[in-house]
């Protein structure tokens, strides 16, 4: 039997057809995992036995009885604020400097971009070696100029700043994005500003900054989301710096030293895949998701405000 469809139905089907790749991707990689996470946050589930409904028990456990939740959240937010801010400032400064360089620009661009290509684990291992308090070259150099270097990754006060230094070393991605934005600013605007007697700061404030604001906002939003998921570097640095042997029977305890590098994603992994406490891991994931959403929305509203002001 031939199926006859009205024009609006056909149009709707066609639209759905075009939308289907996105719809499938959205359902499989966003909607389903999100619904699953909410579902398991109310379940006792060890990934072997059937899930049991336990109401708010997992939520109470995370907020009232999990001592590592506070430090993990604090560390994550600390990294979000400090790392993102410094990365944007450093990346933009580097971009500004490199766009000004006339001779050997290609060399400097390559030199500053190359560290970004280093695999995160290899880069972290190298940094832990460089910053080893007893045998690392950094402290040896500092000792030569009469400075007693800190314990870096082995000191709870220095571990997070060490991770920030590591992220600044691999700033190449942001530098390239900012360079593209900076080179895109119309030259006529600079010329007009110069004719009006604007100095370097005024040109940056009234010409460069308004032009690159969307890119800065992009860098901040993606930086916040990425840093919320910060995992590998902190785990590797802690594991190697601690010197604790990792054998087939041992469990990696993230956060060395004194939970100073423990982030919420590490806690999610630890809860979900080391302790098989799926419910608590899901609660942690949802908290992280909620914070990431709130911060992103706030930033997007701020961006809309900025754009509106420019108009």
């Amino acid at each position: 039997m031939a199926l006859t469809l009205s024009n609006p139905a056909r149009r709707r089907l066609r639209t759905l057809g075009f939308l289907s790749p996105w719809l499938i991707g959205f359902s499989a990689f966003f909607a389903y995992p999100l619904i699953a996470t909410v579902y398991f946050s109310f379940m006792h589930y060890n990934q072997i036995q059937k899930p049991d409904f336990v109401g708010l028990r997992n939520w109470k456990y995370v907020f009232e009885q999990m001592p590592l939740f506070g430090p993990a959240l604090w560390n994550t937010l600390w990294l979000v604020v400090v790392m993102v801010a410094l990365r944007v400032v450093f990346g933009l400064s580097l971009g500004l400097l490199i766009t000004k360089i006339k001779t050997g620009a290609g060399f400097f661009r390559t030199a500053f971009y190359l560290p970004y290509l280093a695999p995160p684990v290899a880069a972290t291992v190298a940094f832990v070696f460089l910053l080893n308090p007893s045998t690392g070259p950094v402290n040896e150099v500092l000792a030569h100029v009469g400075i007693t270097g800190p314990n870096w990754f082995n000191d709870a006060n220095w571990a997070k700043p060490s991770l920030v230094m590591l992220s600044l070393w691999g700033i190449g991605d942001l530098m390239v994005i900012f360079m593209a934005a900076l080179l895109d600013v119309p030259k006529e605007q600079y010329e007009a500003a110069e004719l009006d007697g604007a100095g370097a700061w005024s040109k940056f404030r009234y010409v460069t900054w308004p032009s690159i604001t969307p890119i800065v906002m992009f860098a901040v939003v993606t930086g916040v989301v990425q840093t919320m998921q910060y995992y590998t570097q902190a785990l590797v640095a802690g594991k190697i710096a601690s010197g604790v042997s990792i054998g087939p029977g041992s469990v990696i305890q993230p956060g060395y030293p004194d939970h100073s590098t423990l982030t919420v994603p590490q806690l999610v992994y630890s809860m979900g895949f080391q302790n098989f406490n799926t419910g608590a891991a899901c609660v942690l994931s949802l908290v992280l998701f909620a914070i990431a959403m709130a911060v992103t929305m706030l930033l997007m509203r701020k961006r809309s405000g900025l754009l509106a002001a420019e108009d």
Partner: protein
Amino acid sequence: MPRWRIPLRAPMALAAAGLLLSGCANPSVGSADDDPTKPVTLKFWHGWSAPGEVKAINNSIARFEKLHPNIRVESTGNVTDATINQALRAGGDEAPDVVTSFTTNNVGQYCDSGMWADLDPFMRKSGLDKSKVFPKTLLDYTSYEGDQCALPLLADAYGMYYNKDAFKEAGISRPPRTMSEFEADARKLTKRAGNSYRRVGFMPNFRLYQNSPDRLFAQWGPTYFDAKGDSRLAKDPSTYKFFDTAHKLVEAQGGYNALERFRTSFGDEMSTQNAFMSGKLAMHLDGEWRGLMMNEAKVGFDWGVAPLPVPDDQAETYGRGYLTGTVAGIAHSSRHQNAAWELVKFLTSDTDQVVSFANAIHNVPSTFAALKSPKLDADPTFRTFLGIAQNKYSQVMPPSTNGGMYVTSLQDFSYSVEAGKVHDLKKGLRELDRQIDADTLQSKS
């Protein structure tokens, strides 16, 4: 679309998601319906990785295949507990049938979650009386609340390695037996070099190699849980004495920060740059396998082995130590559980197999018969560990439903204590007890 349909969309989507999720939440289930005399290929995952160890386990498998020509074993080495955990939860054809773990910490979790199959029915079928084959201590650490989901596959005993040359140089005639002798000897054996050290008598910091606090704490014979299963560390006087001794050892040798800084200069534990093997430590807590490594590396000093010292008021317990070991079991998802049992039975209870494997990798045998075997390695340093393993005061960690989570909590707390961050030990221990109890409760259905 009529408007009355709209309110149904969300509930229908949620119901569909729920159905889908409950379907996804059921991992594959294995069976013990197979005939162990029929041809089968078993997947065996283990943690051994050193060439000598891999050779030894491969030889064991070759002996097994000769005895069971219908069973072929595909062996995969250097597998961590984390990998095994994931594979068994995911199930499927690539998941292992027979698994091992290098720690006893997780046995409670494996048994309680049903991830490793209960072995009692298999033992009953094959007439193996476990109480006659395995020492009780070892059976305790391979079961949880009556569920024997693992069997011991060689044990590990912890003792003290010491540098005889350093002892001679310091005028010490024998290894210390009590904690006060330990502290005095550690002080004498420590050699400073400027702001750092040339050698430390005994590195007490808990992050050094095998120095996790539970291992040293075993010398006090603590009781971790009461009859109801509640943590009782704050109530146990030995906990306070243990931390006091650890603190004295630290202070006697220059303080936590100086020792910690020296510790970060140490080489990899399993290499020849190991701090004891490179002469940076005069006394060292370690397992029986270290002797084989010391011999192979031909270290440049004379060394010996002794049990770790005991508290002064428990002198009669000298000879005790911390025990743990490798355990073997059958994956819940295996569809060849009877054939898998044949391999587990062979590896864990065949006397010749246990003895030859123990000799090859320098681990302590885990059956009564193997411990008495005349074929067992006669090396006196190895025999010291056999003595520790058989000492009635030696201690294993009690199994828990959430595996080693309480050990991790104790470790975390101990790191804070040694760093001087816990100002009220009693209050801190009470909080630790509360935490361990909350974690246990959270892990139960």
